[in-house]
């Protein structure tokens, strides 16, 4: 089963409409999941997942119960770099917790690292490559590999980025840093079960700044592009062997 996770209804509307023989299931008495097939591959589409707390807890349960083989995270994210524009597509190269500091808890722990876990969770290289090829095939050229940094408080992201951008920090090393609230939780769960994940999100705006309703229209157009590309990617994967992280 391939899992596609989004926060709002609009994040996953494309995939819900693409499912064949779709059935609805309630998970943990709370979450509506649509289960069907896309290009002969079993797919579950999940929405209303907010924050990495929920995504890591929920996915731990779902991965085990439904034998999930890989996870796609879709929706929107915020850019740190001003060169990344509204409507650009960010593909996760790696993910980290931007709002975690456990340095003092255990010697040798880095900023953003949970003790006992890696500082950075990497998306599968081949999955990234497949995704990029899929985006090319649907005519998208406004995508880039990014570091996904977890944030639970978007309003103060500017300050967060500033802190993390100092000297030799993740945000500084990789100029294409984006913030979202779900990916790293997914990455954590995927790490526990050793399955690949990838986040393909549309940039909604600059970190810490309000976005206008008119820019949301641009995002919706890109949602269709992402939807098509993920579908193509799933099709490609179903022809090949299952990837292992």
């Amino acid at each position, binding site marked *: 089963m391939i899992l596609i996770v989004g926060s*709002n*209804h*609009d*994040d996953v*509307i*494309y995939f*819900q*409409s*693409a499912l064949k023989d779709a059935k609805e299931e309630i998970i943990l008495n709370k979450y509506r999941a649509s289960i069907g097939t896309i290009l002969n591959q079993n797919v579950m589409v999940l929405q209303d997942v907010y924050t990495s707390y929920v995504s890591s807890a929920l996915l731990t349960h779902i991965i085990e119960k439904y034998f999930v083989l890989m996870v796609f995270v879709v929706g929107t994210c915020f850019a740190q770099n001003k060169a990344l524009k509204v409507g650009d597509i960010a593909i996760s190269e790696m993910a980290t917790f931007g709002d975690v500091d456990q340095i003092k808890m255990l010697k040798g722990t880095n900023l953003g690292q949970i003790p006992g876990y890696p500082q950075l969770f990497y998306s599968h290289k081949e999955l990234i490559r497949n995704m990029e090829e899929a985006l090319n095939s649907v005519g998208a050229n406004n995508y880039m590999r990014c570091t996904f940094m977890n944030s639970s408080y978007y309003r103060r992201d500017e300050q967060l980025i500033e802190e993390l951008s100092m000297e030799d920090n993740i945000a500084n090393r990789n100029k294409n840093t984006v913030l979202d609230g779900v990916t790293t939780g997914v990455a954590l769960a995927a790490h526990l079960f050793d399955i690949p994940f990838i986040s393909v999100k549309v940039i909604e705006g600059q970190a810490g700044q309000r976005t206008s*309703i*008119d820019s*949301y*229209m641009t995002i*919706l*157009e890109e*949602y*269709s592009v992402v*939807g*098509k590309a993920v579908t193509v990617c799933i099709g490609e994967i179903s022809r090949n062997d299952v990837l292992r992280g």
Partner: protein
Amino acid sequence: MKQKQQSSLRTYISKSYLALIIIAAVMIISLGLFLVGFIVLDGTLQLVFEIVGGSLLLLSLIGVFVLFILSSEKQYNLFYNTLYKGSMKNLEAIKDRNLEVDQIPDESVKEFQEINEIFNDINDQYKGKIITSKEGDIENIPLEYFDDEKVLVSYDSLMNNIVDLIIVTKSFRNALVEIYYDLQAEDISENDEKRILNKIKEGLQYKNLLISKNKKQNGFIIYVPVFDSVSQLQEEIEGLFRHISIIKRTNEGRKIVAPKVAIVIYPYSSPENMVNDLAIAKRSDKTINVFLPSKENKANNSPLFENLNVNELAKISERLDLLDIDDVDGQKEINRALNDICNYFSFTSVGYAKLNKVKKQFLCEYSYSPEEKHLVLQEKPISAKFINKLVEVKDSDQSYYFSNRQHLNDSLAAFIDSHEIKSGLFYLVMKDGIAVGVIYYLNNDKEMEYDCSIKQGLINISNKIGNYIKSIDDQHIANINAKRFQEVLKLNNDILYSVNPDDYSLFFVSAALQSICPSAQIGEKCHKALYGSDTPCKACPLVTKKHMVEILKRRKFETSVVLHNSEDKAEHLYLKPMEKNKNTSDLFSPDFLINSYYSFCSYLEDEFALEHEGEILFLNIDNVPQLIKSLGNDGYIKAIRNFFDAIREEIDMNLTLYLYKNDNFALLFPSSSKEDVISLTESLYSLAKQNMVGSKQAALNISYYDFKYPESSKEYKLWINHAEKVMTGLRRGKKTDLIYFNEDKYTRSASREEFMLQNVLEAFKRKKYFMEYQPIVGNRDRVIHGAELLLRLNDPFTNAPLNIGEAINIVTKHNRIDLVAEAMTDCLEKLFQVADLPFFQSMGLEHLSVNVDYQTLSDKSFIESFDSLTKKHNVPKGFICFEVPESDIMDHYDEFRDLHFENEVLVCDQYHGELLRLDQLQAIGFKEVKMSRDVILNIINDDVALQRANDVWKFANEIGMFVTFVGVEKRQQADLLHDDVRDSNFQGRFFYSPMSEEKFFKTLRESSIKSIADLDN
């Protein structure tokens, strides 16, 4: 006196029954007698019995008949005329929520008296009360619900009951929201519908929220009964956006379709217009369009609205929130708010007075009384003693309120009684514990029993007005102080500047420094502006804490930080000249407080050294002896200073003025176009002629000389010599108020009016005019239906077009309007010679308009020549339109009644709707209006303008008048005004700009081909 005996309905009915019984008895007896006589008896007895019985029977029948007639009449009067009608009248009054009922006008009947007693009780009990529904109770509104929660309703029942819903909910704001998709009804599945409805209910949690599908079934209409703020409602709707998109399957694949939202709000839209306004809101391109056409709600006669006094105050108060001290209409807005309060609460008089510090008096600055019964006269003082007493007795919220004379403090009685005031509210504007103003609401004919909420509302509004008045005063004082400070610095030639120490940006520059270094402007970095360096000076006193010696414009200055003040975050730097031979004492003229001749030469020297180009306008005052004679030396200097102040305020704060020589001055500015120099000089001329010293006239006669530099001179001194020679030569001529352009050796009057008059008369005499044509297109087919003929004249010097409206005004003023009329007929004659009527008609051209006014139309010679032109060329009826501006029609409204045109159509031009109603225009023969471009240009951003345009169009349609919208310059304007149902015309640069005759014919041909092609399709 004998009392009128009271009857009773019961008695009457009883009596009627009794009479009937008696008659029935008599009938039975008589019948019995008759039968006995007929059957039993015979002979004479039989006859007697038969006759008696028969007679009695007949009599009783007649009796029944009479009883019936009398009783019917009585019943009619009692039951129908009196009881039914009297009761019905009162019931209807109660239905209309009027609880003042009349008595039944017949006290002679006991039952009626009893009913009247109840009516009296009703009157007593409900006197001063009104019937309102319970808050938010919509139970009695006949809505058709589709669910048990009573949220989903049918479209028709919602639309038909909007007005009642608004009345019932009785809140300050109700909203009608339409969420719609660019989809067909069948594209929205049941699941989508359900999901969207759930999200709407989740996102908009309001009691009595109502939702229906919209008319096209591609969206939803939501009635929001009450909400706190527009921005909050908009935010809630924005929050829905991520959850209510719909997938549409197209040939290109799946497309995610987001909704658009239109919102209208009561009271910005009236209840009756909410649905129409929603349709207008949907025409906008915005994703969420909140359409707020009007913030006013007319006072409503319905007694329900009597209870909304607080809401009315809230509406007025909200308008004042938008007041800004830079707002030129701020004073008008305050006056308007006071007028509205006065009218709504029926005060006798409202207004405000301010403290004049010089005269030490409170002068009434504004007074409004709808019936002109001003209790305090405008521009008259209010007794300072009274104000002091008010300060003593006022409440802590700065107000003093007395509902009637009995509740007045004794110390105020004298003033109150002397002004015949019966009740009122005063609000004192206080500053540092001293009263600087007073706002008042007064009655001379009634008491003022207001509850605390209304009183508080008035105080809140007064507080806002008071704060605004104080801010304006503070700003005025600050401006005066700033000016004084600069003048003091000029007198001492002090070179001073202030910077923000964090980023070195300048926020104050003394005139002396600007004189040396014109690039020193507020906001620039000091190191860049003074020394041309991108980084702070290495020896900057702000960093080193030591004096800095630096060269500025070839002179050495020592810069140091001065004027320390712990509260002042800025740093102030002073430049002291270091060279012993040169000093800055010559930088300014101490008399005129402008840059001196020394500064002028110094600046020019720099300009020549840097090989810059520029322009100098020399001003020579020609009437100095006369001014000195009438004003004295000091007065003359003051006159010149006032003139320069006016230049800075009205024209440009940054214009650099120099004293050239004696009574010659110079204005320096970058190289400009001839039009700009002319415009500047015309403005200077106006200011010179309006110049005053105190209350005395001090008009200046000035000769203006325009020179460019460097021209052919390599050195500034040579240039000055050359300019001086030219000006000396010209000064020998005695004429004044002329501009001389040295480059072109051209002279013209500095007075715009005089120049226009000379040139316009000349142009008309020599027929140096020409016509341009601006096509007018249909709203729906976008094909040319008509054209406006525009008379054009050019400035012979600049070759730029002259403002034809202005030209015609001047010609009219000098009684030469015949020239314009002649020009127009001349142009039309030429046009018809080139292209005849059949040609125009074959091209689909239905009319040509010419701009005229009352003067022209009433000129017999014009009418005669026009008539002969139209006859000669067989111009059909209605082909030519006379366009007359609304203001001109207003000025000659009665005279227009006497004008009649058989063949031409009268069109009202530049129509705003502020002076004349459409029916008034129609009454004097106007068939069409052209909506002013001032209104149409603003419809994109101004909902009030859009509403006005739509209202005019709607009303015009209803009464059979036609509308043309002028000034359509952008697609968005055309889209907002487009209507598939109603016909109208568009005129504007989005379609066609004014064009030459040749281009017009070509365009007309192309347009007619397009219309034929459309017909074929």
